[in-house]
């Protein structure tokens, strides 16, 4: 029969790791999305030439592996800026910028999908640029961008496993600690995977719900 050394305390330890994963992900996705909207709108407004420096900056975050970003980011904060901030903060900063780089592309694609004439119709009614953005463009862009954004948020949650390199004990790192102690890798990874699934599932379902609701429009 099945036999394990896993105790209730170990499960609490894993749950705490899962809590850190949720926290890092939530902070990074919220800040990254806000920055991504800002960067995406700036890119559309400025056009390809004037936005080139921003595009280049965002391309760095999209093309360099996250692991390297975390290690270099941590070193930059500690050695160059000489700041005493926690690994958790560094992880949130790097993951937020990483998220914003992808989100900016999603936002840009969503805005580009709004027909130019619809925007002209809004402006011709006397709406200002800001009102057009707020009441017409961003709501419509959100509908187009939502599936990609859900994918991004889920991806960031899984990528957050890499923040162990800046000494943050999130879900996967907690699992590895238990594996080292209990020597039951397959069983523990199964539980870890189940934790990830439980965290992801509501977000994926929420996205599905919104898509269905908006399809009635």
């Amino acid at each position, binding site marked *: 029969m099945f036999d394990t050394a896993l105790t209730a305390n170990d499960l609490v330890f894993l749950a705490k790791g899962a809590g850190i994963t949720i926290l890092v992900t939530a902070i990074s996705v919220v800040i990254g999305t806000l920055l991504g909207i800002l960067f995406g709108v700036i890119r559309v407004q400025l056009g390809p030439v004037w936005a080139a420096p921003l595009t280049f900056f965002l391309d760095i975050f999209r093309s360099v592996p996250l692991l390297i970003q975390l290690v270099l980011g941590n070193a930059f904060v500690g050695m160059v800026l000489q700041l005493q901030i926690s690994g958790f903060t560094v992880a949130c900063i790097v993951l937020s910028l990483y998220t914003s780089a992808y989100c900016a592309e999603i936002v840009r694609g969503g805005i580009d999908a709004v*027909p130019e*004439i*619809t925007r*002209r*119709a*809004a*402006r*011709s*009614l*006397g*709406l*200002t640029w800001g*009102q057009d953005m707020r*009441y*017409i463009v961003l*709501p*419509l862009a959100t*509908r187009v961008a939502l599936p990609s954004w859900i994918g991004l948020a889920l991806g960031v949650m899984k990528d957050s496993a890499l923040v162990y390199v800046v000494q943050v004990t999130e879900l996967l790192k907690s699992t590895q600690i238990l594996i080292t102690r209990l020597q039951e890798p397959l069983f523990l990874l199964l539980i870890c995977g189940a934790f990830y699934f439980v965290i992801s599932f509501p977000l994926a379902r929420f996205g599905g719900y919104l898509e269905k609701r*908006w399809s*009635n*429009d």
Partner: protein
Amino acid sequence: MIEIQNVRKSFGELEVLKGIDLTVQRGEVVTVIGGSGSGKSTLLTCINGLEPIDSGRITIDGTEVHAKSTNLNKLRRKVGIVFQQWNAFPHLTVLENVTLAPRKVLGMAKAEAEAIAEKQLRHVGLGDKLTTYPSRLSGGQQQRMAIARALAMSPDYMLFDEVTSALDPQLVGEVLETLKMLAEEGMTMICVTHEMGFARDVSKRVAFFHQGIMAEIGAPDQLFGDPQHPETQKFLANVR
């Protein structure tokens, strides 16, 4: 009064308006006809300042549209425009489409804006579609909604840019009827159109555009019955 004086406009190398002069009096209905690429639609978007002009002057009731000091958002309240398609805001109901600008631009209270919107929607025959989303409307109904939305701002002038061109033939009539009704009520209108029957019946004057110039303008009877410019003659021979 809308006064257009020697207006020139280019897109890159292509000059689409080559010195247009036109004055439209209050209460007048002017239709603009001509082949595609003749500059007629561009003229409309220049009139309400959606497009800048290269030279010349457009004034509406004495306010110069393209002057730096002009508040375009304010000026546009006077001038409604309806385009060929993609007019609707698809994420808002018909009622919300129409109340958005009165509420956000004019600062109207919700109830007041809704009363005006309902009145305008009933006026164009959409009184039973208030809570419907635009995707559930036919093309003709969407165009009528766009007309009601523009009217809800109580504009002094209305510009119509080929509003029936993207519609199935059986839906054209209902939109033209709405335009005719507005004309009869005394709305000042500039209509770019391919509907010659409509131009003949409704307008006080018809302008024929050809390759960025206004080749000819006159009363419908004259322009359709006895066109003077060779390009007008050629165009009318082809569309008949």
